[in-house]
């Protein structure tokens, strides 16, 4: 693994290796002194062409815990339109001798493009509507922790390494909402299905992309049908501009038919996990009651955020820190 650009193009073995490493790093996050010298002397540049708080902070924290320098560059959209091409920005950064580039960009494929210009590993922190691989990896880790490790059935494989590591066979994950514009939904499809989970996309047909039925998923327009017997329910953020684009009649109607509420969750399995990549629109794609995990609902957004740091530590470590990664460089 030379870069982390998309889960679709990442080997399943590499997905397992990142998760395995993340589990090891999680232990560090539980220590009172959260600092290791792992990446001392290394520097990570986070280049963000879109506003983001949690993803950028998560990467910065991951770098700092491992003693790497983290430099953030937030490029305002205005200066992009003023002139400097993406390529030139990348070549400038390259000359600043960073050891790893973490990129968030509004254009699908930007991370892949960047990987052609810079010599250092590129981590895709979200490109357009394409992929957001570290988000899916943290989602997978969260699902595995809550649905596999915590399971009472002792015969279930919980291996951390080998062919069956992080096996999610038998689990059904319903991703609900604006999947058409969601890079999180796409990355999750590839990651989850590679590990054996069944994935559903649930939402109004105007928010389901063309030919979705050719992906390894099932599509549901009806929320309750889509949630039926699901082990995990993942709600996606709805951007209000979808109304202006004529894709939805109103927030009101959307919330009425597709909001993940306590009532709708009754269709899912008891103990179903509720997830959200954040930031949430309470009362739109997820009800406040569900978001707060009231009434026995297992909302695990907190775990997702913590696991995000562990997963990003693992990615940084494997791509720039470990001898293993260097010796297994694949172009």
């Amino acid at each position, binding site marked *: 693994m030379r870069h982390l650009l998309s889960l*679709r193009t990442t080997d399943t073995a590499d997905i397992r290796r990142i998760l395995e490493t993340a589990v090891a790093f999680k232990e560090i996050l539980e220590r009172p002194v959260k600092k290791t010298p792992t990446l001392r002397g290394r520097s990570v540049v986070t280049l963000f062409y879109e506003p983001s708080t949690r993803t950028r902070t998560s990467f910065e924290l991951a770098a700092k815990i491992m003693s790497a320098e983290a430099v953030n560059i937030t490029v305002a959209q205005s200066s992009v339109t003023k002139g400097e*091409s*993406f*390529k030139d920005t990348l070549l400038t950064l390259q000359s600043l001798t960073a050891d790893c580039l973490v990129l968030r*960009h509004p*254009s*699908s*494929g*930007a991370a*892949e*493009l960047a990987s052609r210009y810079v010599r250092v590993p590129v981590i895709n922190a979200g*490109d*357009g*509507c*394409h*992929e957001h691989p570290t988000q899916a990896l943290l989602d997978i880790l969260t699902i595995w922790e809550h649905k596999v490790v915590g399971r009472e059935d002792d015969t279930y494989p919980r291996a951390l390494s080998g062919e069956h590591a992080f096996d999610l066979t038998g689990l059904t994950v319903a991703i609900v909402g604006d999947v058409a514009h969601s*890079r999180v939904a*796409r990355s999750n499809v590839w990651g989850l299905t590679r590990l054996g989970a069944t994935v559903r996309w649930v939402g109004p047909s105007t928010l389901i*992309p*063309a*030919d*979705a039925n*050719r*992906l390894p998923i099932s599509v549901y327009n009806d929320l309750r049908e889509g949630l039926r017997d699901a082990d995990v329910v993942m709600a996606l953020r709805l951007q209000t501009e979808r109304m202006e684009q004529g894709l939805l009649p109103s927030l009101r109607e959307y919330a009425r038919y597709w909001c993940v509420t306590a009532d709708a969750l009754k269709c899912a399995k008891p103990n179903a996990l509720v997830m959200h990549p954040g930031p949430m629109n309470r009362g739109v794609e997820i009800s406040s009651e569900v978001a707060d995990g009231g009434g026995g609902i297992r909302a695990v957004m907190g775990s997702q955020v913590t696991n995000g740091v562990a997963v990003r530590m693992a990615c940084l470590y494997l791509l720039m820190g470990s001898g293993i990664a260097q010796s297994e460089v694949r172009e």
Partner: protein
Amino acid sequence: MTHERTPDRLILAGGRIVDPSQSLDRVGDLVMENGRITQILPPGTGGAGVVRNVEGKLVTPGLIDLHVHLREPGFEYKEDIESGTRAAAAGGFTAVCCMPNTNPPIDTASTVRYILERAQEVGAARVYPVAAVTRGMGASQLSEMADLKAAGAVAVSDDAFPIQNAETMRRAMEYCAQLGLVLMTHNEEKSLTEGGAMNEGYTATILGLRGMPRVAEDIAAARNIFLAALTGCRLHLLHMSTAGTVRLLQRAKCEGMPVTGETAPHYWCLTDAACEGFNTNAKMNPPLRTDADVAAIIHALADGTIDAIATDHAPHAAHEKDQEFDRAPFGVIGLETAFALTYTHLVQRGILSLSSAIEKLSTGPARILGLPGGTLAPGAPADVAVFDLQEEWTVAPDEFRSKSANSPFLGQKLIGRAVFTVLGGRIVEV
């Protein structure tokens, strides 16, 4: 190009002469005198003059491309008339029709004259300007089409800026009809493709790119055919890419309408899967479509529904294509690969006979616009292409005569390549 004097008598000796306009396929000597074709004689009997031995080679009417962006004036960093016509000659083309989206656009007689003069000075192929339908391709006020025609425009089109307003299109067609001008349309209902970067479908979905649905082409083609029926305008459908547009053209022809259509090699060689890896060299408009569309295009070439193969040669500089996929411009070059792609993918696979392939690339286009050429009949201009059908070659970015290298076929092995062309009785080495 060569600046030598045109020889009084030029003989291409001993080649396999294929001329679809005369249903001719035989080995012989092609004789040209004073820039015109005079006769085809048995091999070895061509007589005196400048003799070029072309034994074992294919001799055809010079190819004619109805759809080329030469970029001059205004975008000479992408291509100019000299480099574009050199690319044409390297592909076996002796004539190209150039689209009006230059700067200034070809919407005044003086720009038409400028292009014709430049082509006269530096052209390695004939250049036939296609003028804009509306001023500045702004889709509101009609351009001075009578004047443009008088200055030498062979057809009109707003190609890349398709007229969305049906009333404007109707009046443009009425105006063209009285002038006997062919109106060429890029068929795209823009409200369905806004922000789109590639064909709508599986690949766009997994890449997270905004799609352009096939019906956007079908709807616009249908509207344009209906308006052509109303106005009696001679309509030519540019770069057809969908099964739907093929069906519409077929139906219009069955009804006896004077509608013609062209497609380009990328629409039968590639599908939207070529955009994988965010390959901006596979980004053009209309976009690469699906397997079903490729099958329909191939079928329509074989059954004659599609009249011509054009290239939509659209050069862009490397820095323009080296961008985020959604920001990169639409367009691919095609002049230097069109013949080989036709020969390799259609003739060798038995879809088109060699003669009908040549027909789609020369006689067919000439007929559509009533251009001279596309034939080796006595009296025709001595515009000839000579190909080596044995040559296997690999498409390489540094070998193009075009200033740009934005081809989706880089690295592909193809068979068949132009050796030289004859333009008005004068040899143009490639």
